[in-house]
């Protein structure tokens, strides 16, 4: 009984880690622009599929392939900001969000042309026997996913709290006028936020693909789940997205295991509705802060 529970818990933590990364990606962009980037899920897909391309098709060694994948994803983020967000400048926020939806559809189209509709996978990071904990089987890749996510969280924390650039990005989120007045180039911060969140998404994709496979149209579902994670924790809160992501992952896997696997995808949406009805600022967001926000 406990073994089964533990098994569900670990599979929940694994998907939860990716939701947390997607949720953080949402927050990075939201914090510096107030835009909800609906193409966030596609960054994860790009991560998985490009990693397959570099390792299986071009046969590059692992680290080089991972590095190239992350850089390419960053480049996609950069192009997205340069070509679709920047030209709009101070257009209506809702319009910008719709543009990100358009970009996500476009990206899916390109990915389908290049990779077709089949799911892809590649070897896990390390070969070897799975561990057993109290009877539950844990694949080595599961630990990699959780470990990589933890590393990302720590690195993002350091970036946003200890470096001047990170502080400047937070400053932009708090008060754009003041950020301009201290000499921060706000449009560069917006660009960096897109690059950074694309990279974070791609890292999630690289880590999860050996477990859950990756196909061209996985993006929207990942985006919805990651968005739920961000909403649950309070939009814009780094810590909130992490906790929200893991919570949704675990609840999802418990629902699939104990109730019905068909209800899995409904969980996140039910949680999101409940949060929006009863605690729109999220579990960790402050109501006062969310009232001051544009969106």
């Amino acid at each position: 009984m406990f073994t089964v529970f533990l098994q569900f818990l670990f599979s929940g933590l694994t998907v939860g880690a990716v939701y947390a990364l997607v949720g953080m990606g949402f927050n990075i962009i939201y914090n510096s622009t107030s835009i909800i980037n609906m193409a966030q899920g596609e960054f994860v897909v790009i991560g998985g599929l490009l990693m397959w391309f570099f390792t299986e098709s071009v046969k590059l060694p692992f680290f080089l392939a991972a590095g190239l994948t992350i850089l390419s994803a960053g480049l996609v983020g950069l192009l997205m900001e340069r070509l679709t967000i920047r030209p709009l400048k101070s257009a209506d926020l809702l319009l910008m969000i719709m543009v990100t939806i358009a970009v996500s559809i476009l990206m899916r189209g390109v990915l389908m042309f290049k990779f077709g509709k089949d799911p892809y996978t590649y070897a896990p990071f390390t070969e070897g026997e799975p561990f057993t904990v109290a009877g539950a089987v844990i694949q080595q890749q599961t630990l990699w996913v959780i470990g990589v996510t933890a590393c990302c969280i720590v690195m993002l924390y350091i970036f946003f709290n200890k470096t001047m650039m990170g502080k400047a990005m937070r400053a932009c989120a708090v008060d754009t006028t003041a950020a301009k007045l201290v000499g921060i180039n706000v449009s560069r911060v917006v660009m960096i936020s897109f690059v950074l969140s694309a990279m974070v998404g791609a890292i999630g994709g690289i880590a999860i693909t050996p477990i859950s496979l990756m196909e061209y149209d996985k993006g929207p579902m990942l985006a919805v789940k990651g968005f739920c994670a961000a909403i649950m924790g309070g939009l814009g809160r780094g810590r909130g997205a992490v906790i929200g992501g893991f919570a949704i992952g675990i609840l999802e896997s418990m629902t699939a295991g104990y109730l019905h696997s068909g209800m899995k995808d409904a969980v996140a949406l039910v949680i999101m509705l409940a949060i929006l009805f009863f605690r729109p600022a999220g579990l960790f967001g402050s109501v006062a802060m969310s009232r001051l926000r544009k969106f």
Partner: protein
Amino acid sequence: MLILKNVEVFYGKIHAVKHVSLHVRKGEIVALIGANGAGKTTLLSTISGLIRAGSGSIIYEGSEITNRNPDAIVKMGISHVPEGRHIFKTLTVEDNLLLGSYHRYSLKRSTLIKKDMEKMYSMFPILEKRNKQLAGTLSGGEQQMLAIGRALMAEPRLLILDEPGTGLAPTIVKEIFSHIVQLRDNHELTVLLVEQNARSALKIADSGYVIETGRIIVQGTAEELLSNRDVQRAYLGRDVDAEVKI
């Protein structure tokens, strides 16, 4: 040091600033006075690059800065403390000051910038006491000091102050003004000051301009403005003609 020539600013169809020309000399405190909605804040924001000028030119230390981006203008040595303070509320006091030095920050200069922060702390000791606190939790006066400290961290030669006294107790306003005077006397800082309280602004100023519905209507030295009857009636709360002689 700063010359405005025929500057015009529009908000859509609203003509907010009309043919304004003014001159700020090095080492002077220049006061800009006028009623609410006269266009003072708009004019200051145009100088610091937050708002585009419709026409006219702004010349700073001999070079044209009209419609440059705010970050370029900060680099040239103009720091703007905006109306309503605009501190970074969810960041610590220390980070607020540090971000003030953003345009000149590099790892090599970090010790130098640390020293400059010490200077700010000795000017405003209360900020040092609260340096790890979130800036949004400070009192109004402390927030104003922080906003000024942050602007000074950019090492400006021209400081633009928009209503530093709003909503503050008179003793705190006095303290802030005395710091401004000291900065002018000891560091040759040039200051362009907008203040609701016209009398206290003109008392520390060297010269002043009166702006009404987007137009400069009177200009002169601070003494001239203080003794100008129209200015007294409109902005200093004293109507000499209506006063009964005893």
